[in-house]
């Protein structure tokens, strides 16, 4: 059972090693990287490649670690008690399972994605230390210990908005998805748009990497933005010759709105184009 990438996802060699190590040693895999480099997609692709179900837990700033385990719905129990519902006598009826419980209870080990863990409070990863380490937790209300039948494959993504605690990091494998180079990008495009004209792709790649190298950009366009842009180019039937037409007046690539998401960046680009035109 080795992860080798899928027909819709290009995995680099280092990524494969990291994923396989995490799977073999049953440790969580922490993924970081520039936005739009496919951190979240990775978990889906691992699930697909290893034929396992995927359970995603999307973390928000208000998410508590406890919600991943279980929640006790006191309000509906209160309502039921006032309505005289018989269910009220069993507290287990009001325990709502979290994603972690789902993953632990699954018959076949699933892939559990904990997405954007850095969005939550600073203490969030610490609160999950024991649960992820031992793969078990205790339900206080029903005096029951939930143990993982099979250790799930855990993929955690982070956008680096908060630093994660050392104790947590020590338990993980870590992989930083670096921005793909030209060849990798070409393979990625091939996977998404098979049969795209070589000429167009070449011109688009050149324009794209030139744009990314522009000093002073606030937000550099990412892989997913490049793919969107290609889709637009294809939809608008823009030919490679239009992209290649890099005389001064046409320095800004067509449909640049898909790539530059910040008016300061567009402005910067225009200014450089203007200077180039004078030169």
């Amino acid at each position: 059972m080795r992860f080798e990438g899928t027909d819709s996802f290009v995995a680099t060699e280092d990524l494969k090693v990291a994923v396989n190590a995490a799977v073999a040693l049953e440790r969580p895999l922490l993924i970081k990287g520039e936005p739009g480099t496919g951190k979240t997609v990775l978990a889906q692709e691992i699930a697909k490649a290893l034929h396992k179900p995927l359970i995603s837990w999307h973390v928000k700033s208000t998410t508590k670690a406890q919600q991943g385990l279980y929640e006790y719905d006191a309000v509906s129990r209160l309502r039921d008690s006032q309505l005289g519902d018989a269910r009220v006598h069993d507290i287990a009826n009001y325990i709502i399972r979290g994603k972690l419980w789902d993953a632990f209870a699954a018959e076949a080990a699933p892939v559990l994605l904990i997405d954007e863990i850095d969005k939550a409070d600073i203490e969030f990863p610490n609160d999950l230390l024991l649960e992820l380490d031992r793969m078990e937790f205790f339900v206080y209300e029903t005096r029951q210990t939930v143990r993982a039948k099979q250790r799930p494959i855990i993929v955690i993504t982070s956008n680096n908005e908060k630093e994660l605690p050392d104790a947590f990091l020590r338990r993980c494998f870590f992989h930083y998805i670096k921005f793909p180079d030209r060849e990798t990008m070409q393979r990625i495009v091939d996977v998404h748009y098979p049969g795209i004209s070589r000429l167009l792709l070449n011109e688009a790649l050149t324009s794209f990497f030139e744009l990314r190298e522009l000093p002073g950009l606030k937000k550099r366009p990412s892989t997913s933005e490049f793919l969107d842009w290609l889709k637009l180019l294809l939809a608008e039937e823009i030919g490679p010759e239009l992209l290649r037409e890099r005389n001064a007046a046409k320095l800004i690539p067509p449909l640049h709105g898909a790539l530059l998401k910040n008016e300061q960046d567009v402005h910067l680009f225009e200014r450089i184009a203007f200077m180039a035109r004078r030169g």
Partner: protein
Amino acid sequence: MFLAFFLALRAAGVKASLREFLTLQEAMRQGLAGFDAEHFYYLARATLVKDERFLDKFDAVFAEHFKGVLQPRPEAPDEVAPQELPREWLEKLAERLLSDEEKAQIEALGGFEKLMETLRQRLAEQQGRHQGGNKWIGTAGTSPFGAHGYNPEGVRIGQQGSRHKSAVKVWDKREFRNLAGDAELGTRNMKIALRRLRRFAREGAAEELDLAGTIRSTARNAGYLDLQMVPERHNAVKLLLLLDIGGSMDEHVHLCEQLFTAASSEFKHLKHLYFHNCPYEMLWKDARMHAADAIPTLDVLHTYDHTWKLVFVGDAAMSPYELISPGGAISSWSQESGKTWLTRILHTYPKAAWINPVPENLWQHTQTTRLIAELMERRMYGLTLEGLDQAMRRLMQ
């Protein structure tokens, strides 16, 4: 197995723990790396490094430690594009663009002459790629892009490697150099660093439902609802920001603006004032420093009490008499020396830090920077993500 490598990593400042080392051993025993050096590198990296800022250090240590296993790095190609650029100008550019490490690398490649050639070549290439690059490069000195316009990447000598991909080992490519912690930071990163400076407190009108309190008092109330309210949680930290403006600070304006933007959105209680070179008996509410905007420093000290935390932002570079002798201020006559005023201000605010946009390794070359760092009891930090982080931690102590 690889104990020396592990120790070398730790010596280089990569915080790998014993547990992680054991994990690596376990992974090796399970044969996850196979017999492939590259796979071993990837595996060791995924196990021992947990922060992309350390990836570059890891690569360096790895390259150093397993040097015997590798073939030497190939020499850079020799052909030089015939592109005439004034040498003086190039040297200046190199000084600004290349890190110490890169300079060392250049030494290894054949010294400064060689560097000039490579740079020249690189610039010529750049011109080829960016249409009208001539103009672009020419204006770089004075244009807004001047100070930070050139991405070191553009002129990075290390890039040589990617063109000889087949010959160079992955770890020699040092692709993660840009992720090192002292790299330039954006507003968003700064906000995150500033967020360390948080102390939540509930103050003001009770507007939020206190769920725990409501349940408690409802239970005490024999099940009849008894609502409890609490004030909203706020960041109660109060920050007094004193910014150096003008003169030698001009080249850092962009960075300081970013810091200011980040700070003003993070703190509810933020007061910012300006000074020139060193604070004396007057501070200014506005960066233009009109007389109308001036307020006496003593008023400031009396208005904002010791519960405010003080952050100076400045390069602390001035002529020594501006700091030491009375009347040394260049903008106006001051009765007392800058040092006296600084001491007085620091006396009022025990929680203080000085953030210096000048790179830390240059501080010791400026006399006043050393003096002020001493006055600050070494609470001077660089305007980098790491420096900000340390400063904020220090302020919270």
